[in-house]
Every structure is written in structure tokens, then in C-alpha cells.
């Protein structure tokens, strides 16, 4: 088990694609396996695991390029004030 957001996201991606040797810095889109099904799974995983809702304007490719950029997005959204 990983404690960090990067680690948890990496574990999820590696679980889906064990053949991909990937680290937190690598561009997952460069592997060529990101399709709409995996994108949906990835967004659902991030939202559920970290208890956030990703607004449409944050669903940008730059936010999902690597485990590190996704972790940064998670950190940003977790620190935003909750709007009732």
C-alpha cells in the first residue's frame, strides 16, 4: 500500500496496465493506452479515493499527464474551501 497520492495513483495505473513500467514523472499518454474507458476509470478512481469532485474545467490533459500532476490536482482541490 502507498500512503501518498502519487503512490496510490501509480498503484492504480500499474494495476490496470502491469506491462507498463511507469513512474510518477512519466507521461501516461506517451504509452498510448489512454482511451475514454481508462480516462473514465481514472477520474472515478481519483474522485473516490481522495473524496473530491473534479470540476469540468480541471479535466485538462495537463492535470492527468502523470501521477505527479494528478497528485498536484488532488492537493489543490482538497485545499479548496468547501462550498455548501
Amino acid at each position: 500500500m502507498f500512503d501518498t497520492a502519487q503512490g496510490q495513483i501509480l498503484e492504480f495505473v500499474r494495476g490496470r496496465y502491469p506491462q507498463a513500467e511507469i513512474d510518477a514523472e512519466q507521461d501516461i499518454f506517451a504509452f498510448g493506452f489512454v482511451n475514454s474507458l481508462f480516462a473514465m476509470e481514472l477520474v472515478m478512481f481519483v474522485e473516490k479515493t481522495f473524496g473530491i469532485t473534479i470540476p469540468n474545467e480541471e479535466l485538462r490533459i495537463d492535470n492527468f499527464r502523470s501521477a505527479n500532476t494528478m497528485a498536484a490536482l488532488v492537493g489543490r482541490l482538497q485545499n479548496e474551501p468547501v462550498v455548501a
Partner: protein
Amino acid sequence: MTLLNEAPAAVAAAGSVTGPVTGPVTGPVTGPVTDRASARAFVDACVTPYANAYDRAGRVPEDLLDQVARAGLWAPFLPSAYSGADMDMVTLGAVHEEVGRGCSSLRSLLTVHTMLAWTVRRWGDPAQRERWLPELASGATLGAFCLSEPGAGSDASGIATTAVETGGGWVLNGVKKWTTGGQRADLFLVFARTATSIGAFLVPRDAPGVRVVPIDDMLGTRASMLAEISFQDVVLGRDALLGPSGFTAGMVLTGALDLGRYSVAAGSVGIIQACLEASSAYAAERTVGGTPLARLPLIQAKLSDMVTDARAARLLLAEAGRLKDAGDANTIMATWVAKYFASVAAARHAAEAVQIHGANGCSPDYPVARYYRDAKVMEIIEGSSEIQRITIAGQAERETTI
């Protein structure tokens, strides 16, 4: 045309198979549908006795759509803040199963409405949600899903409908085909090619340039009021676009189809259950040489497989629903598997149900011929069995390849 809510003589005469004719659709309903039991009661009273008549007429009557609205069935999964009932997905699956047990055409109308309502809930901005969700929850606005085209079915990436961005919004051009509920729907969820990706657009039926042409006389789900819908220079506001653009735009389609597959899987379970109930009742009454069909081992084999597959398909559906309620990403593949298994099983058991009924099964006096035709449709819509096998095999490959 107008369809009266009266069970024709042939359907009434077959009451022992289809259930008693309890009265016209306009009769009193006990209350909102909140779970499987209340859904079953609603369907048995208001849907099943008339489903063969709907099938022959090629449409369901407005009275039935109103009854569905009064029962709170159109989009009970929406939040109460938008006049929904906060129904969980496991329960929604059970409700759609019960509706599918009675009438696949009505279940099809629920399916496409569900796909549109869920998409607005998931991807709509606050203004879009406020504008549409209360009407979608109440059934005041009925939705339909426009993806397939004359030249693009399973190959969704091949769609030719275009949405061109203008200064103040969008201009839509193209033709959609096989749109379930298209003859009746008020609001269309249209997938169209943009400059960068495939976008999802909300298009009111009364927008200038929208033309609806009914498609009749289909093999199955004959009362689901299919249509071909053309869009000629349809001018839309900026707020017609739903969801993100760019790499995640495909997620809007993926999510909508996921809900569609979930509902179709539920409807397929309902068909298997309907086949079981019709066949076991017939086998108990019909005799051959003084022996009820139900005592014959070859008939028992068919019935036992119906029981087993109904339970297995129901469990797969419930697992997919549980994962949806948990927000678990594994729900997408679980829903593929449930839809694939349930639809194939429905087609198989509907064929066997006709076989058990013999010549009666081929007649309009029993419901199993309708189940047979409807079940075949389940193997094609929301991802054909072939596409599902490719996707499921892809899952196996990516999880096991080293």
C-alpha cells in the same frame, strides 16, 4: 394514432399467462415506486396486461407515460434537490428489471431518459442542472440519446454529425438514426464532431431545423417509438454543450453508455424472468399424453437453466450497481460483463420459452414471441455482443500481460 388503454380480447384471454387484466392504465396507482416490490406491483397492474397491445400498435400511449411520471419512475436516481428520489443504483437496476419483465419498449424509453438525465447530472454546470433536472425528474421533459447514424453504429468514432463553434454558440448538422423514443422525446442528447473531439449537446425537439421521422415495424421493442432525426443548421447556444472538452470529452459518451448498458442489462434480466414465469406456468398446465410438460426432463432442463441464468445475471447486475453506488471505477467493466451475460442469456431463454410453448409460442396470444423479438435487440443495443467481447477480452489482456 391513438392507442386506447384497453387490453384486447386476445391478451385478456391469455390472462393465465400474462397475468390478470386488472383494469385500464388510467386506474388508481398505489403510490410512488421506491423499490423492487412497488415496481413489480406497478408493472403488473399498469404495464404487463397491455404490453402485447403496445407491441402491435408500435407505440405506448400517453396515459402510460403519465402513469410512469406519477409513479416517479423517470429518473428516481436524481438528487432530491432536483425533485428526484435519491434512489441508489442497485435499486434502480431492480426497478428497470421489473419494467423490462413487463415491457421492453417501456424499459427502453426509461433507458434513454436515464442516459440523458444522468449525463446532465454528472456533467452539467449548475445552470444546466437547474434548467433541466427538475423537468427530467418529473417527466415533464422526456429525453432521448442520439449517437448512431446511418453510417456509424458500433463505430462511434465514425460519426459524421458536426457541431461548428460560432461566436455565440454552435451550429449542428447531421442525421441520427435508431433513436429510441425519438418520436416522443422533448430533449435530445446529440453527439457530434467538433473541431477537437466529440461533444455532447442538448438539443430541444422544437429547435428550428430539427426534423423527426418515425421508424416503424422493427423486429423488437416495437413500441419504443424509434425515429430518424435530422439536424439542419440547428443554431444552439453556448450552454448546449455538456461536459469538458479535450481528452476527457469521450468520458461523457462513456458514462452515458455505461448507464445505458446497466439499464439494458437490467431489462435483459427482466426478460429472462418473464420467460421463466411464462414458461413455468405454461409447462404446469399444458399436458402431453396426460403428463404436464413440467414433468418432462427436457422441459425441466430448459426451466432449470432459466432459473440459474436469471439468478446469475441478477447478481452480476447487482454487483455492477453496488460498484456504481460506491463510485468504484470497476463498475464500468462490471457493467459490460453484466450486459453481455444477461443479453445473451435473454436471447437464449426467450428462444427456449417459444420452444416450450410450441405453436402457441409463435402466436400473438402469448407474450413469449414478443420476448423472443425483444431479447434479440438486447444483443445489439448499447454495444453489440461482439464489441463487448472485444472490450472484455481487452480487460483480460491488460490485466494479465507481463
